[in-house]
C-alpha cells in the first residue's frame, strides 16, 4: 500500500477544503465580479486591485496578516471569541477563510471577464422584455457566462488544492483538521520519506494536469457558439 491512512486523511481534507472554498467563492465572487464588470464607480480600480492582491503577494504575507487578524488579539479573533466561537486560527474554518481570500482572484477574474464580454446590452434587452434584475441574472447572465463559471470553478478548486503557505501560517499541521496534501508532502520530505512524498507529489501532478486538460479542452469547444 503506497499511501498511508494519514495520506488519505490529508487528501480527503484537501478535497473538502477545495470544494467548500469553491462553492463559497462562486457565491461571494459573482456579485463582486458583476459589480467590477458593470460599475462606473471610482472604487472599481481599488477594489479590483485588492481582489487581485493574492496573485502577487507571497502566501506567507497573506497568512501572516490572517494569523494576526484571526488570533486572540486580532479584530476577527476578538469578534469570534465574543461570539463564543474561540479563535479561527489552527482550525478548518480558519483554513476556509484563508483559502477564500487566497483563491479569490482565480474565481473573480474569469467571472469578471465573462460578464464584461456579455456587455450591458443583453441586460438592457432583458429589461425591455419585462425581466427584473434577478430574472435577468438567472435567464440571461448565467447561461451566457457559463464558460466563465466553469473556468472560475475549476481554477478556484485547483488553486486551493495547491495552497501551502497560507495553510502553514494559519492552520499549522494538525492531522484531519488542517493537514492538507501539500503540508503532508512537506512532512514526508522533512522526515526523509521520499517514497511516500513521491506518491503524493505524483498524484498532485496528475491531478493538476487532468484539471488543466479538462479546462483547455472545454474552452475550445465553448468558443464555437459565441
Amino acid at each position, binding site marked *: 500500500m503506497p499511501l498511508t491512512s494519514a495520506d488519505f486523511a490529508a487528501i480527503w481534507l484537501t478535497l473538502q477544503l477545495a470544494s467548500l472554498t469553491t462553492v463559497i467563492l462562486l457565491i461571494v465572487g459573482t456579485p463582486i465580479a458583476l459589480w467590477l464588470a458593470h460599475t462606473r464607480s471610482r472604487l472599481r480600480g481599488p477594489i479590483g486591485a485588492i481582489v487581485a492582491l493574492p496573485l502577487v503577494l507571497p502566501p506567507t504575507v497573506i497568512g501572516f496578516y490572517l494569523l494576526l487578524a484571526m488570533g486572540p488579539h486580532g479584530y476577527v479573533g476578538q469578534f469570534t471569541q465574543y461570539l463564543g466561537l474561540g479563535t479561527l486560527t489552527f482550525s478548518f474554518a480558519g483554513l476556509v477563510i484563508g483559502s477564500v481570500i487566497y483563491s479569490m482572484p482565480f474565481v473573480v477574474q474569469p467571472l469578471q471577464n465573462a460578464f464584461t464580454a456579455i456587455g450591458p446590452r443583453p441586460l438592457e*434587452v432583458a429589461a*425591455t*422584455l*419585462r425581466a427584473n434584475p434577478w430574472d435577468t441574472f438567472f435567464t440571461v447572465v448565467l447561461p451566457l457566462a457559463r464558460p466563465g463559471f466553469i473556468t472560475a470553478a475549476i481554477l478556484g478548486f485547483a488553486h486551493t488544492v495547491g495552497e501551502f503557505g497560507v495553510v502553514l501560517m494559519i492552520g499549522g499541521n494538525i492531522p484531519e483538521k488542517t493537514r492538507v496534501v501539500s503540508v503532508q508532502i512537506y512532512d514526508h520530505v522533512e522526515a526523509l520519506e521520499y517514497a511516500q512524498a513521491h506518491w503524493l507529489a505524483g498524484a498532485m501532478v496528475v491531478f493538476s494536469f487532468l484539471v488543466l486538460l479538462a479546462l483547455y479542452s472545454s474552452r475550445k469547444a465553448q468558443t464555437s*457558439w459565441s
Partner: protein
Amino acid sequence: MTSQINLRLQHSYSGFALDLDLQLPGKGVTALYGHSGSGKTTCLRCIAGLERASQAYVQINNEVWQDSQRGHFVPVHQRALGYIFQEASLFPHLSVRANLEFGLKRIARQQRRVDLAHATELLGISHLLERAPHNLSGGERQRVGIARALLTSPGLLLMDEPLAALDSQRKGEILPYLERLHAELDIPVLYVSHSQDEVARLADHIVLLSEGKVLASGTIGETLARLDLPLARGDDAGVVIEGKVCDYNLNYQLLTLQLPGSTQRLRVAHASMAIGQRLRVKVQARDISLSLTPAEHSSILNSLRVTVVSETAADNQAHVLIRLDADGTALLARITRYSRDQLGLCVGQTLWAQIKAVAVLA
C-alpha cells in the same frame, strides 16, 4: 387630449447636454431625426429608462414613467414598452422561438394583445422559429427582434435606428414590414433615424434634434417644407405628400393621386391600387421646375398650379429654394438663382410646377 406623449428631459453627460420639452402625438410614427451626436438615441434611452435623466418628466398616454420632482422612476422592466436596438441583440443562447417567447411569457395573459402567430406572420419569420440566432441573416435577425418587442404588447414602441446596421438591400427587405406594423397595429412609435428616406417613408410626425435641443417638431408634410430648417437646404430636400388614389390606367400602368383638399392630381408609375386608398410619395425639390405657363407638348406628366409662398438661399450658392403652395399642399422647388431672376419670381405669384419625378414611398 388623452393620447399624448409629454416629455421634459434635462440630462448632461461628458460635455453634452440634452434639454428638451416636447408634446408628441400618442399615435402614429414620430421620427426623432438628427445627425449623430444630436442626442436622439440618448433621448430614446431616457424615455425607456435605460438612462436616468437627472431632470425628467416622461408621460406616455396617461402613464407617468418618470417625474424627477416627485422622485418617481418606474424601472425599465415595469414599463409597457418595446425597444428595438440598432443591432437586433437576440439572446445567442436561445432559439428564435425562445427569444420571441422571452417577453411574451413575462406579461400577464390578459394583457397580451399580440400573439406569436400574428407577430411571426406580420414580420415573415414563421419559418425561422426553430433556428438559432447565429444562423439568421442580419435582416432576419432584426425582424425577430421587432417581433420579440411586439410580443410584449407594448403601449409604445421605441426604435433606435433599426435599419442602420443593415445594407440597403436588407433595409429594403425590412421597410415593408415596418409599414405593415404602422398600418395594422395601433401602437405609437418613436423612431430614431438619421436617414431622411426612412423618415419620409414611415413618419407622420418629425422632431428635429440638433446638439441636444429641439429645432422643430411638427407633421412630416409641414416640417419638411419649412424653409427655415436645415432640412430644406440639403441636397435631398423635398416634401412628402399623401394622396388619395382616384384613377388607374392599366394600359400605361399609371396611378392618379388626388392632392389632399384639392382637385389637382399627380400621376405616378405604380402597380394598381383600389380607388380611395392612400399612397405616400416624395417629391424632391430638385425634381421640380417652374414655368409661367402650363407646359404643353412635354414629356413631364405632372404640372401643378401653385403660388409662391417664400424663398430662401440653398446650401449651394447658385441655387435658391422656393416654397410653393398647391391648394394647401406645400411643395419645395430648388431652382437656379439665374432662373428665378429670369422668371421674375415674387411672393404671391401663380405659376406652374412641373414635377419630373415622383418617388413612391409607401
